[in-house]
């Protein structure tokens, strides 16, 4: 298929280079994110997958510069958003970028809205923060956004407080806040985990529609490969704070090249196959404050070699745009 809009696939909005975020804890330095790099093109959806505790959420917080300092700190790396590295800039400048250029939708719709403000008020705030426009326009804009996320009778519901809405509704409001200033990058941190399946599907469709309409780039953080298949163009698989495999959705699903990716895929239940038992990965991820010298997955890897315990595998090319950090990849 010929791409009609060349811009869509060429312009890079976000480049992350060798990002390391560490936490100082009682047990030592926890390397929650340990040298990840990726880029995100306009209108593209990147999925970041992995078990809980692999560093997905810390990656998300680092991109927003919301890491609590202390105990956390971004040790090295650069996050270039829209041509500007956001790591060295001041907190005030960052506050201006949050919400306007890069926005966030968090996992739990039940607790992510402030209980003492009406939802209209909260959406309006998101707009006022970044746009110097008269109050009337702000209100209209807020209602527009609420309509956009399919809130029925937006005028009346805007006066409601979070506790008066259902989980799915609240999640839409959170979404509305995220897109209210037309950001370039939207980070969705497991935005559908607490919703039931039909509402989840509706919500995902909504996100896709909005994305198509405004050429939004989305980073989808999830552990659900079903969602990845439905939503994403490319996937980065994270394990123990590092990206172990990175490629297009097709590459990852058809030709998983890291044993961890294979294991993850194997543990997804499939409709078209009869399985007696779901595959699960034995063992636990290594403690992030005490990573082994070699490959972090070595202890759980079914095809481990001596070399794996000696040195961490560098990133190796499997095919064009598909890389994996595994010694088996030649």
């Amino acid at each position, binding site marked *: 298929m010929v791409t009609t809009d060349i811009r869509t696939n060429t312009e890079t909005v976000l480049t992350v280079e060798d990002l390391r975020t560490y936490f100082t804890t009682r047990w030592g330095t926890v390397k929650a994110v340990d040298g990840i790099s990726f880029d995100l093109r306009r209108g593209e959806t990147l999925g970041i997958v992995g078990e809980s505790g692999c560093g997905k959420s810390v990656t998300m917080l680092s991109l927003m510069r*919301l890491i609590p300092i202390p105990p956390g700190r971004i040790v090295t790396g650069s996050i270039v958003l829209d041509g500007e590295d956001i790591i060295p800039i001041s907190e005030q400048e960052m*506050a201006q970028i949050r919400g306007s250029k890069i926005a966030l939708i968090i996992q739990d719709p039940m607790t992510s809205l402030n209980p*003492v403000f009406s939802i209209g008020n909260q959406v309006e*705030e998101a707009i006022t923060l970044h746009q110097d426009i008269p109050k009337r326009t702000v209100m209209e804009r807020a209602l527009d956004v609420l309509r956009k996320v399919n809130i029925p009778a937006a005028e009346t519901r805007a006066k409601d407080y979070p*506790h008066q809405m259902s989980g799915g509704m609240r999640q839409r409001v959170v979404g509305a806040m995220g897109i209210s200033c037309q950001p370039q990058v939207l980070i969705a941190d497991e935005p559908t985990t607490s919703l039931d399946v039909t509402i989840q599907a509706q919500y995902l469709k909504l996100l896709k529609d909005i994305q198509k309409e405004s050429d939004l780039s989305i980073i989808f953080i999830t552990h659900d490969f079903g969602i990845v298949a439905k939503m994403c163009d490319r996937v980065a698989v994270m394990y123990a704070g590092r990206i172990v495999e990175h490629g297009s959705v097709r590459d990852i699903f058809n030709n998983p090249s890291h044993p961890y990716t294979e294991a993850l895929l194997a543990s997804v239940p499939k409709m078209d196959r009869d399985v007696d038992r779901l595959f699960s990965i034995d063992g636990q991820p290594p403690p992030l404050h005490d990573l082994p010298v070699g490959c972090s997955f070595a202890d759980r890897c079914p095809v481990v070699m001596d070399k794996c315990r000696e040195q961490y595998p560098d990133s190796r090319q499997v095919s064009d745009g598909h890389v994996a950090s595994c010694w088996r990849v030649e």
Partner: protein
Amino acid sequence: MQKYLVRRFLLAFVTLLSVSLIIFIMSRVSGDPRHIYLDDYSTQEDWDRMGVVLGLDKPYYQQYGIFLKGALRGDFGESVREGRPVTAVVIERAPATLLLGAVAFSISLMVGVPLGILSAVKRGTMMDTFGKVVALIGQSAPPFWLGIMLMFFFAVKLGMVPPYGKQDWNSIILPAVTLGWYYAAANLRLVRSAMLDVLDSEYIKLARAKGVNSRNIILRHAFRNALIPPLTFAGVTMGALVTGSLVVETVFAWPGLGRLAIEALFAFDYPLLQGVVITFTLIYVTAAFIVDVLYAYVDPRIRYA
């Protein structure tokens, strides 16, 4: 909202009624009221006549009815010591206590809330330690002793303020600080822990992600939520401020209801004592009701429940 307020109002009413019952029972248990009015030289006739006047010849429930009817009209009988209506004496003394309570309550808020917020925001720093020390001392020093010590240093030693009584504007400083201190400490702790919980919440994370700056995160988003627990506590505070006024007014010879109660007590002036106790309860119930309304205003979950 209306249902909530009606409920709170009914509760206030029931509370008043129960207190009046307790008071009535206690006044009867403590002995025949005629002993207070009549001395050893009165005759049996005097005794009986007095009984009829006070309604003591009727069964207890009717006596309570009479007491209640009087109380509703603001009539608690005559003070034995002062020889005039209890209500008049109480009304004369009430403003001093209300003033003291209001100033002390303001102190407890103006000291406790900002310190609590600072301690939470600057958790683990010197500021936090300072807040902890203030709270620990505030909740441990007995008010009667604290009052005496303050009086010794600031009035006796330094002569900065009058040691007792209510003459100049600055006589209120020591009693109000003494009374407010404990609740300042309590508010500090409550606000600090509420603030920590709120700052930890998802909605604060999302507000930051929206681009709200640190100052507004605290002042706009966190503050109102962090006010909810101390507001719940404010009802209790008000009640305890009443008790506290008993002690503090005694220490500083402050001419309010607390001292009046102690005076009435040691003069065996039961009618006066009853009047003061009922007034105290009334003040508490009213204050608690105001707090309930405020509470509903701050927390929409209650307003629309």
